[in-house]
C-alpha cells in the first residue's frame, strides 16, 4: 500500500545519496556529513521526549556518553585495553566484554534505555518539572563516574584507538532507521497519547491513558537512540573522553529542536543541518573579525545562547511548529 511504497522510495533515495556522497565527496565534507548524521539521530530522538511528549529533559549528554563508552569497551580488543588503562588495571568485566560493531551499538542503546527506565521511576511518578533537573544532574553523575571509575573507563584519560567501523553509510542507515522509527511512533496511538500528554496531561489521564507508561516509553526510546548515537560517535571519532559529553552537547541539541520546531521530526532534521552548519560558519566570531578587532573566544556561544532566548520569546514555534513538512494545513482554522 501507499505507506510501504513511499517508504521504499525514500529509503532508496537516501541510500543512493549516501553511496554517491561517500564515493565522490572529499573526506572533509564526508566527515561533516557523518557528524550531521549522528546529530540527526540524536535530534529526532531528543525531540520525542521534549517536543512530542512535552516533557522538558536535558538527558542527551548522559546517554550519549553511556552509549559511547559501552560501544568503545565492546569494540576494543583486550590487548588495547590492557595497554591503555593506565590509572588502574581494567576490571574483569571490561576485559570480558567484546562484540562486533552492530551488536555493540544495539547493546549501547539497550543499556541506555534501561538506565532511562530507572530514572523514569522517581521522576514521572510525581507531579512537577523535576525531569530537567534530574537529567541535568544525571549528566554530571555520568561524567563523575567516568572520571572516577578508572578500572571501568580509564578515567579522564579516556579511550582511544577505537575501531573505526562507522562511516557515512552506516551512520546514514542508522539515521534513516531512527527517523523511520520515530515517525512510526508519532503516527500511532502512542504518538497521539504523547501529544495528548503534551497538550493536557490531566485530560489525558481522564481518558484512561496511563501517562506514566507513555512518558516512560518516550523517554526510553529517546535514550535508546541517544545511546546508539553515542556508540557511532565513539567509532567515528575513535577516541572518547569524559569532557566530550558535557552540557554543551545537550545545549546544541536543544537549539536544534527548538529551531526546527518542538515536536517536528522533519524540523529537527533540517535544523540539524542549519545549526551545525551555522556553528561552523560562525566560528569567525571567536577570532578578530568584521565586528571586532580583537579575538573574543566565546562570543560564538554567547550569540547562540542569545539566539535560543530570542527564538523562545519571539518565535517559539520554530520553523515547523509541531508539524511535519508534508502536513496539509488544517482545513479552516477559523469558523
Amino acid at each position: 500500500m501507499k505507506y510501504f511504497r513511499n517508504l521504499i522510495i525514500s529509503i532508496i533515495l537516501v541510500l543512493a545519496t549516501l553511496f554517491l556522497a561517500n564515493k565522490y565527496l572529499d573526506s572533509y565534507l564526508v566527515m561533516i556529513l557523518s557528524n550531521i548524521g549522528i546529530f540527526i539521530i540524536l535530534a529526532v530522538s531528543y525531540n520525542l521526549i521534549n517536543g512530542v511528549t512535552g516533557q522538558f529533559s536535558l538527558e542527551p549528554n548522559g546517554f550519549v556518553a553511556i552509549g559511547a563508552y559501552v560501544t568503545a569497551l565492546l569494540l576494543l580488543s583486550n590487548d588495547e585495553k590492557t595497554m591503555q588503562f593506565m590509572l588502574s588495571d581494567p576490571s574483569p568485566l571490561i576485559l570480558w566484554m567484546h562484540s562486533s560493531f552492530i551488536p555493540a551499538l544495539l547493546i549501547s542503546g539497550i543499556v541506555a534505555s534501561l538506565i532511562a527506565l530507572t530514572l523514569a521511576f522517581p521522576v514521572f511518578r510525581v507531579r512537577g518539572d523535576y525531569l530537567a533537573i534530574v537529567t541535568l544532574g544525571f549528566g554530571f553523575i555520568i561524567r563523575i563516574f567516568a572520571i572516577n571509575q578508572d578500572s571501568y573507563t580509564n578515567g579522564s584519560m579516556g579511550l582511544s584507538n577505537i575501531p573505526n567501523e562507522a562511516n557515512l553509510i552506516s551512520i546514514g542507515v542508522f539515521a534513516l532507521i531512527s527517523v523511520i522509527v520515530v515517525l512510526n511512533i508519532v503516527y500511532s496511538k502512542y504518538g497521539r497519547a504523547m501529544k495528548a500528554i503534551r497538550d493536557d496531561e490531566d485530560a489525558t489521564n481522564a481518558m484512561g491513558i496511563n501517562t506514566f507508561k507513555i512518558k516512560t516509553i518516550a523517554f526510553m526510546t529517546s535514550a535508546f537512540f541517544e545511546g546508539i548515537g553515542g556508540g557511532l560517535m565513539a567509532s567515528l571519532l575513535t577516541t572518547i573522553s569524559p569532557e566530550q559529553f558535557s552540557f554543551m552537547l545537550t545545549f546544541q541539541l536543544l537549539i536544534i529542536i527548538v529551531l526546527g520546531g518542538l515536536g517536528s521530526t522533519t524540523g529537527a532534521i533540517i535544523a540539524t543541518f542549519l545549526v551545525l552548519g551555522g556553528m561552523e560558519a560562525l566560528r569567525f566570531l571567536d577570532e578578530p573579525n568584521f565586528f571586532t578587532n580583537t579575538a573574543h573566544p566565546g562570543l560564538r556561544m554567547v550569540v547562540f545562547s542569545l539566539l535560543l532566548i530570542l527564538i523562545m520569546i519571539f518565535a517559539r514555534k520554530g520553523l515547523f511548529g509541531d508539524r511535519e513538512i508534508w502536513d496539509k494545513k488544517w482545513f479552516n482554522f477559523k469558523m
Partner: protein
Amino acid sequence: MIQQILNALSLGSMYALIAIGYTMVYGVLRLINFAHGDIMMVGAFLAFTTYSVTSSFSLAVLVAIIGASITGMLTYKIAYKPLLDKNAPKISLLITAIGVSFFLENLFNMLYGGVPQAFNYPSIFDKEIHILGAVTNFASIFIAIFTIIVLISVLIFLNKTKYGKAIKAIAFDFYTVKLMGINVDFLILLVFLIGSALASLGGIFYAISYPSIDPLMGVLVGLKAFAAAVLGGIGSVAGAAIGGFILGFSEIFIVAYFPEFAGYKDAIAFFFLIFILLFKPTGIMGIDFERSRF
C-alpha cells in the same frame, strides 16, 4: 570533629542562601530558574572585579549584590515575563531559563578570558580562630552567623510583613491575588531581587572559601542547591535552609569518614534528590500546593 561541624555549617550556609532563591521563584512562578546558579557566579565575579579595582571589600560586596539583583530582575522582566504574559506552555519557560543560564556562563567566559581567576579577599577572613579545641578561620564563623541572621530576616519578612505575606499568597493562588488588585509583578520582582541578592552573597562566601572562581562555578553549586531546596520542600524557605544544611553536612561528613568516596561527593545531592522524589516528593517541610486543576 568540631572542625568538620564548622566546615559543614559554612558549606551548608552557602547552599541554603542559594536554595532560597530557587524555592521562592518556584513558589510564585512554578518555574525552576536554571539561571539562578549563574547569578551566584555573577555576584562572585562582580565582587572580584570591584575589589581588584577599588580595594574596598565592602564596596565589592555592595556592587555584587546590586549587580546580581539587577541581573536577576532583568532575567524576569526580559526573558520570563513576556512568556508568562502570553500564557506560553511551561516548557518554553524552562528552555528560556536554560538559555539565560548558558548565556550568562558564556558571557562571563568571554569577558574574563576563559581561565579561572584567583579571588582576593581581606586577610581578616583567614584569621585563625580557636574554638572548643578546634582550629578554624574567621570566614567559616562569619559565614555561618551571617547566614543565620539573613535566614531569620527572610523568614520574618515573609511571615510578618505585608509584602512577605502577599508573596506567600501568590504561591498558593496566583490569580486570586491578582484579582485583589495587588501588584503581582512588583512582588515577583521583589522575589527575584531577594533571591539574587542572597545568591550573590552565597557566591562571595563560596569564593572566600574556595578562592578560585570561573564562569561555570554556578552550575554544579546551583544544581546541588536546587536538590537541597527539593529535599527541604520546594516552596518553603525554611525547607530550603534545612535542605542546604543537610546537604552541607552530608558532603563534609561523608568525605571525612569515607574518604574513598571523595570523588563522588558531588553525586550526594543527586542521590538525595532521587531519594526524596521516590519517598516524599513534597520534601521535609512538605508543602503541597494542590492548586485546583480540575
